[in-house]
């Protein structure tokens, strides 16, 4: 069977950073083992070049596409890493299953698969460390237990996708072109357009996401977060350097975005370290006691790509919203409402 993979032909192969990547994971988990000192030493082998302002240079266009899931699959409980052979088998299985050229599954599955594989660019490979989850802490690779309120938020979001829409406000934020869940923050891989561009000046780091073309401006001057009454769709980010790592602290979220059940009290910490010329290791920690039993952390190596990032003017062609609402009205008419 011929597999049709999304193209990576223009991308360099993953640079050899698995040791550094694993070292970084060890060094940054609260349950760091004694090996972390040695791991940290290995991680220091690559030193990022400096910008004109003397900061580690994280600039460029980075892709976080990967097929490694956020959480460890149940069947792999207790198995934190795949062997090279297992990873190859997993990649083949996932790529076959995710292939949108498949016509099995009946009409309903077909409609969901929407259009063929050519349009997708979700990545074809697991992360280089072959860890079986992006989550590195807790060690079981699972999101910690959810509060009742978090479960309700998740159920409400799922309901939104299936119930008949009275108007645009009944639909998801992505359908309304307001906000893209995987662009976050935190940033996670998605079906395509997994690209973000980092630009640095002396006083700011700007992160531009291709989908849906938001820019996070992160001041580096140590100014405090706004008062808690001020709430923003992307939260409010503040950055500072710890050695070669950019640490970004984000609070002041609204209650409109729900990340795996998170609330407006989400406190997100992101770390960006250039662990190789072609690799930006991105780590995020979620702290939201009203949602999760304890904090949790995930790590995604991102690969440097040539770009460019293309514009994603989401609402320019948002015929989908019109179609969804028109379909809902038509269904009501047919039901005699």
């Amino acid at each position, binding site marked *: 069977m011929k*597999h*049709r993979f999304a193209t990576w032909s223009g991308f360099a192969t993953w640079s050899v950073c698995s040791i550094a990547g694993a070292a970084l994971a060890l060094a940054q988990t609260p349950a760091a083992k004694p090996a972390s000192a040695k791991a940290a030493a290995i991680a220091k082998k690559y030193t990022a070049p400096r910008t004109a302002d003397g900061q580690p240079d994280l600039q460029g266009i980075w892709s976080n596409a990967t097929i490694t899931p956020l959480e460890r699959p149940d069947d792999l409980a207790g198995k934190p890493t*795949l062997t090279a052979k*297992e990873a190859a088998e997993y990649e083949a299985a996932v790529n076959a299953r995710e292939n949108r050229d498949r016509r099995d599954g009946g009409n309903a599955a077909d409609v969901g698969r929407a259009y063929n594989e050519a349009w997708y660019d979700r990545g074809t490979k697991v992360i280089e460390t072959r860890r079986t989850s992006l989550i590195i802490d807790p060690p079981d690779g699972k999101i910690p237990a959810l509060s009742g309120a978090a479960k309700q938020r998740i159920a409400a979001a799922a309901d939104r996708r*299936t119930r008949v829409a009275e108007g645009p406000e009944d639909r998801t934020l992505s359908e309304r072109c307001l906000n893209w869940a995987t662009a976050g923050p935190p940033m996670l891989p998605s079906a395509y357009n997994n690209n973000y561009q980092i630009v640095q000046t002396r006083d700011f780091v700007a992160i531009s996401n291709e989908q849906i073309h938001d820019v996070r401006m992160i001041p580096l001057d140590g100014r405090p977060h706004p008062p808690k009454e001020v709430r923003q769709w992307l939260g409010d980010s503040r950055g500072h350097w710890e050695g070669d790592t950019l640490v970004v602290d984000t609070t002041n979220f609204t209650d409109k975005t729900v990340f795996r059940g998170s609330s407006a009290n989400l406190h997100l910490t992101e770390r960006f370290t250039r662990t190789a010329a072609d690799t930006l290791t991105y780590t995020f920690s979620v702290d939201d006691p009203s949602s999760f039993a304890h904090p949790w952390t995930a790590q995604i190596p991102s690969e440097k790509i040539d770009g460019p990032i293309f514009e994603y003017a989401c609402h320019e062609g948002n015929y*989908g919203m019109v*179609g969804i609402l028109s379909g809902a009205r038509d269904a009501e008419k047919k039901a005699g409402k």
Partner: protein
Amino acid sequence: MRTKLMLVAGFGALLAVVPAWAHHAFAAEFDAQKPVKLTGTVTKVEWINPHAWIHIDVKDADGKVTNWMIEGGSPNTLLRRGMTKNSLETGTVVVVDGYQAKDGTSRANGRDITFQDGRKLFVGSSDAASAPPADAK
């Protein structure tokens, strides 16, 4: 061998849970009970986000022409592969295998879009041999 089967089964179970939608619930817009197969000529290409739309003139048995709009994906990925809206020229004959809009209008989601000989219109780079001629610029 057993490990391999276990692995595939495990990931399969996980993937069944991961939502397949990218931008929106297509089932809210298109009707699984209304599959269509259309042959038409391209009249316009909207190479836009969140979805590209390809407009085609479809002639029925009586010669009546209806213009359909066919939904594709985000054009950004195809742009990276060297395809542009000029890769699909006006007048090109295409065959669309898709599902009609729930409200019954002449709109469909372009499940499979091919040339008349069955070659896929939009392909990944591994199928570059059957891709339409890319815009040289």
